[in-house]
């Protein structure tokens, strides 16, 4: 090494946004793949829920608007809900990793680098989104196969290329929205324990009230909460892309509303993330 500065002469004052985003996102994915326990936590529990709730609630579940031989089984109904639960768990794990990065000093190392602050948000959130999307997709692809080992009933799903692409798009925006929402909480909370509180009080109820687990109720306040919950529109949109018989979904938000709310929610959360990260003067303390 010489006294002159061969490296920084060639580069501009700031590292390119995409390179920093890319390296932070790749790190998320590599770390995840190297921690088996996270994989089991994020995908195992929802699958177990799906099988057990599906078997247990099969007799007592009746989807409004579908009766007789064409009736939607609970596991068919629950399928998009479980995919979203996988997304939710993955986003929770990535949010927790933000808290850990900050406590361990990794985040300080990133913050003193000349990277645009938005790259820190985008890297974290897109890395988490990629993981969530991948797992949810694998689940949706593999779940119907459980029928062959008698762990699930036969499923009548729409598997045309169009629908699969639409389902993946929906999963992407849901993942982006939930991961960005998780970042928002994680940025403000300094302990993993504190984050568990948010998880139980905000994130899990949000999932329960999204139509993922049960299709609404007679109760006025619950219907109101469900219609105000942005995740309701994500779950409904995903359900619309998967179900063959759209008739039974007549009480659900329209596809337009689903797309609009889901994308809007993700963009809003991401913008707030970038905003709070930029204006935080003592992010490392």
């Amino acid at each position, binding site marked *: 090494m010489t006294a002159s500065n061969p490296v920084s002469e060639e580069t501009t004052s700031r590292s390119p946004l995409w390179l920093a985003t890319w390296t932070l996102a790749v790190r998320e994915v590599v770390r995840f793949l190297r921690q088996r326990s996270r994989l089991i936590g994020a995908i195992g529990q929802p699958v177990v829920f799906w099988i057990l709730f599906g078997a247990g609630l099969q007799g007592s579940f009746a989807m409004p608007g579908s009766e007789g031989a064409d009736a939607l089984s609970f596991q068919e109904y629950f399928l998009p809900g479980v995919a979203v639960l996988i997304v939710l768990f993955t986003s929770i794990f990535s949010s927790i990793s933000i808290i850990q990065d900050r406590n361990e000093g990794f985040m300080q190392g990133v913050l003193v680098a000349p*990277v645009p602050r938005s790259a820190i948000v985008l890297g974290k959130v897109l890395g988490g989104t990629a993981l969530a999307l991948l797992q949810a997709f694998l689940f949706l692809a593999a779940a119907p196969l459980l029928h062959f080992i008698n762990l699930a009933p036969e499923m009548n799903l729409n598997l045309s290329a169009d629908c699969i692409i639409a389902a993946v798009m929906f999963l992407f925006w849901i993942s982006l929205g939930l991961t960005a929402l998780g970042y928002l909480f994680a940025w403000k909370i300094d302990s993993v324990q504190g984050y568990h509180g948010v998880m139980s009080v905000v994130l899990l109820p949000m999932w329960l009230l999204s139509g993922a687990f049960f299709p609404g109720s007679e109760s006025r306040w619950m219907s109101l909460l469900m219609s105000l919950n942005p995740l309701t529109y994500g779950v409904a949109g995903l359900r619309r892309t998967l179900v063959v018989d759209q008739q039974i979904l007549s009480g659900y938000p329209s596809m337009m509303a689903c797309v609009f709310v889901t994308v809007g929610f993700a963009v809003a959360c991401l913008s707030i993330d970038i905003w709070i990260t930029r204006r935080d003067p003592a*992010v490392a303390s």
Partner: protein
Amino acid sequence: MSSVEVEQLEFRYGERVALRDVSFAVSAGEVFGLLGPNGGGKSTLFRVLSTLLPIQKGNARVAGHDVANDPDAVRRSIGVTFQSPSLDGKLTVLENLRHQGHLYGLSGAKLKQRCAEVMDQLGVADRAKDFTEKLSGGLKRRVEIAKCLLHAPEVLLLDEPSSGLDPGARHSLWEILLGLRNESNVTILVTTHLMEEADRCDRLGVLDAGELIASGTPNELRCMVGGDSLLIQTENPETLKAKLQEQFQAEVIQLGDSLRIERENGHELLAQIATQCEGEFRSLTLGKPTLEDVFIKLTGRDLSAGEDA
């Protein structure tokens, strides 16, 4: 030319003043040590210089760039290691370096070359494929420093680089740091609360309770303590202190069970105390003043006393 210039810097966490009117300058190629107890303001000063905390009052320039107005230029010219490790344990040494390089806009062949260079410099090339969580404390610290050298910074800011290292690893770390300075004229600003490390710096600043109470070369600082330093260990410090003050008109500093006296021709006093206070002390030591003595003289406290804070 000064690599680091700090003028009348002040920082408060709410009501608590962490830095009060701190001014100093570090020339290019100098190893400057910030000495002080934990809680003295070293880490706050560090965070301000590394752009993690805003400048509330005063000025700071690093490598010619204003910290408040041009943080990105400052970030590009500094390599920083913090007390808490910034390595990702789930990544290998090389992956950690590559990741760091990307954050500084390096990629491709250039990045590959720089990774090889810094791993050679820090002697970790043979561990390139090891996960960093499996490395010893000393090796981790070296990778950490390799990481912050990757973009060839002009100024290194190292916050307690040898904390948690055994004396052997600490020694080799300092050999590396001084080697770096000699080879590439990089400026090194280092915090420490260990005297033996402070002795290796070109110049020192003593930071206590947010104020820079002294600065100079280690020798200049030692000269602030006149003559010799006498250290007396005793079971009854109070009684002996009173006696010494009365009999020898000595200025006695008491720290727990030990008493310290500064005196020209300390050996004469030593002989007198040895004969006249026989049996009242456990040990009696005479030495040239150390930086520890300087710190005690300046603050009236032991350097390690602030450690619980």
